[in-house]
């Protein structure tokens, strides 16, 4: 059978367990992680993930079994303890948070490794598989795990749903929340508990080291696509689930491949794509925007040069050669050629026998640029007391930028003047 069909038909219970488990883990971590991200506490997840290990070992030592309730319980306690330790160090010493996290993380993890080694050397047969907490075991999830994960995921979802507005306000403006009397301390404790829970179940899929990635990366990726917090959290959830599903699929078609690391690779790829290609916030979109701005500036400068030529011969219908334009604005003849062709395509210029002429639209646009340039020069000299010989360069930038509203405001403020500081006429349509 085609592995794709075999996988997505979910006939095999093992596939079902792994897929559902991976999705539950990644999606719920992504939702809780969104708030860690918005609280700018991204490193906290890493601290908890490492601090969970001694708790798992402790749970095993005390119960003698790998019953998830004991392991998760122990993990929850030491995860929380690590946060208390971080807060204690920060508030009682001069050590800053990042250093405190580094200290606490390594101490807890060290103790955890120590305990794990002791347990492994003890010859207790029940201990095999405990090191799954170190590296994750997403590909070996069983029904019992799913019940535990499902329960935790439900707790996370319901709590986030109920306390959504409180979590949001705390992330945005904690002082205000306190001032209006919200129980900030309890809300923070609740959110932290959710993070600890998410980490405790998450590390069983991806392990201690990669946990921070499935907590924070979906939110960081989602932030690129939207400015709405609800959409952001939903996107983070989808990104997380997608990575969980892909991780499970990849380890199914290539059994030698570990699920956890693939989950992280997929979510990181999504983050990378978001970073580069998201509209508005992405790198490519920014570069494109810069390019558009640069083109506008070149276009308008050439239109302006042609307008100045028109002013010189007092006739805006006159045709001019490229050489004449270059004398007004030297941007190199190759570049000029490209700009002229672009302006022609856009309907601002026409050409005949290598000579260039405004269309009506072209003249209107050129006139507007010249007008704003001269108005701005006048504004700088009259309102900011800048010497007339220092205003040209500023005006050269502002002329391409001003919106029609600001243009109107400027005209009104200066009372529709006739001349700029250099006695050049300010053209009105």
């Amino acid at each position, binding site marked *: 059978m085609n592995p794709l069909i075999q996988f997505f038909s979910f006939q095999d219970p093992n596939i079902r367990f792994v897929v559902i488990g991976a999705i539950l883990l990644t999606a719920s971590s992504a939702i809780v992680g969104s708030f860690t991200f*918005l609280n700018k506490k991204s490193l906290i997840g890493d601290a908890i993930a490492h601090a969970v290990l001694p708790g798992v070992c402790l749970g095993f030592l005390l119960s003698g079994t790998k019953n998830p309730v004991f392991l998760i319980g122990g993990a929850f306690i030491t995860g929380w303890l690590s946060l208390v330790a971080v807060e204690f160090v920060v508030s009682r010493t001069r050590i800053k948070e990042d250093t405190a996290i580094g200290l606490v993380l390594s101490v807890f993890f060290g103790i955890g490794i120590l305990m794990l080694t002791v347990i492994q050397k003890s010859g207790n047969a029940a201990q095999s598989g405990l090191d799954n907490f170190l590296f994750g075991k997403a590909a070996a999830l069983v029904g019992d795990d799913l019940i535990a994960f499902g329960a935790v995921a439900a707790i996370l979802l319901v709590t986030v749903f109920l306390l*959504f507005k*409180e979590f949001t306000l705390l992330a945005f403006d904690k002082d205000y929340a306190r*001032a*209006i009397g919200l129980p900030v301390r309890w809300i923070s404790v609740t959110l932290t508990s959710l993070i600890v829970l998410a980490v405790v179940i998450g590390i069983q899929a991806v392990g201690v080291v990669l946990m921070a990635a499935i907590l924070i990366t979906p939110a960081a990726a989602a932030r690129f696509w939207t*400015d709405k917090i609800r959409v952001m959290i939903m996107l983070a959830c989808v990104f997380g689930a997608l990575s969980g599903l892909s991780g499970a699929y990849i380890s199914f078609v290539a059994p030698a491949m570990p699920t956890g690391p693939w989950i992280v690779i997929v979510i990181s790829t999504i983050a990378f794509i978001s970073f580069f290609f998201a509209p508005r916030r992405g790198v490519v979109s920014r570069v494109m925007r810069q390019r558009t701005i640069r083109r506008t500036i070149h276009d308008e400068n050439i239109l302006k040069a042609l307008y100045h030529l028109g002013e010189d011969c007092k006739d805006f219908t006159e045709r001019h050669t490229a050489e004449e334009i270059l004398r007004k604005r030297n941007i190199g003849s190759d570049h000029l050629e490209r700009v002229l062709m672009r302006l022609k395509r856009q309907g601002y210029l026409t050409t005949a026998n290598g000579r260039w002429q405004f269309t009506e639209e072209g003249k209107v646009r050129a006139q507007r640029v010249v007008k704003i340039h001269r108005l701005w020069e006048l504004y700088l000299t009259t309102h900011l007391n800048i010497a007339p010989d220092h205003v040209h360069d500023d005006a050269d930038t502002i002329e391409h930028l001003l919106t029609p509203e600001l243009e109107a405001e400027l005209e009104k403020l200066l009372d529709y003047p006739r001349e700029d500081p250099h006695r050049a006429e300010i053209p009105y349509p």
Partner: protein
Amino acid sequence: MNTIQQTPPPALEVHDLTVAFDRKPVLWNIDLTIPQGKLAGVMGPNGAGKSTLIKAVMGLLPLSSGFVKIFDQPIDAVRGRISYVPQRESVDWDFPASVLDVVLMGRYGKLGLFKRPGKTDREKAKECLHQVGMEAFANRQISQLSGGQQQRTFLARALAQEADVYFMDEPFAGVDAATEKAIIQLLTTMTEARKTVIVVHHDLQTAQQYFDWLILLNTRLVAHGPVETAFTQQNLQDTYGGKLTLLSDVGDLIRRENFPNREGTIPKMI
């Protein structure tokens, strides 16, 4: 016969308030009272402790000594009646929220836990946006606002609380003159409705014109009272005429020596 006259409790009463950062006191022994319905200005030079005072009063900073009462009650008993406009720079404006989202936060106190803002809250928020001239910006992302618009958004959020006492930390920073006038107009109308507004303010020029109550501060209280009596040349001289070097040196000494502010508050060490 009962001859005791019923006077309304003061909006704010501060008694022997000392606030320290890292053990160094930045406010020493402040005692003051603000009656209800006043538009009060908190003024003083940079580093005088103006923001610290209002944050401490609202319980956002630990007090080294003293207590605060609002309407004769401890602050936590009247949280629902107080409102706060923090400094604009105190939050990250690159947060995924719209102007309306932020103003709706003003309703959270009244809503209580778990409940979501409904239609009436939304209408109230829009009305408050209208009051500060921002109704056209309701759906704008807050990252796209200018400084003055951010300030007005915070103001609208405070108004949406429908509180009785308003603490405002430099609400005019980055606001143009026309908007400042409009806001002062709004605050004056509020005080006419017996609201109390306490404003941290920078500009001495406008102080007399804006406020009817004044608190002059420079790490200690220089003067407080009706603006006619507090706004004197001598008081201004005392407030702005340089730091009290001795006081500041003693504060530094307290920090260096890790000394308690009061007997009995010896710092608990680890």
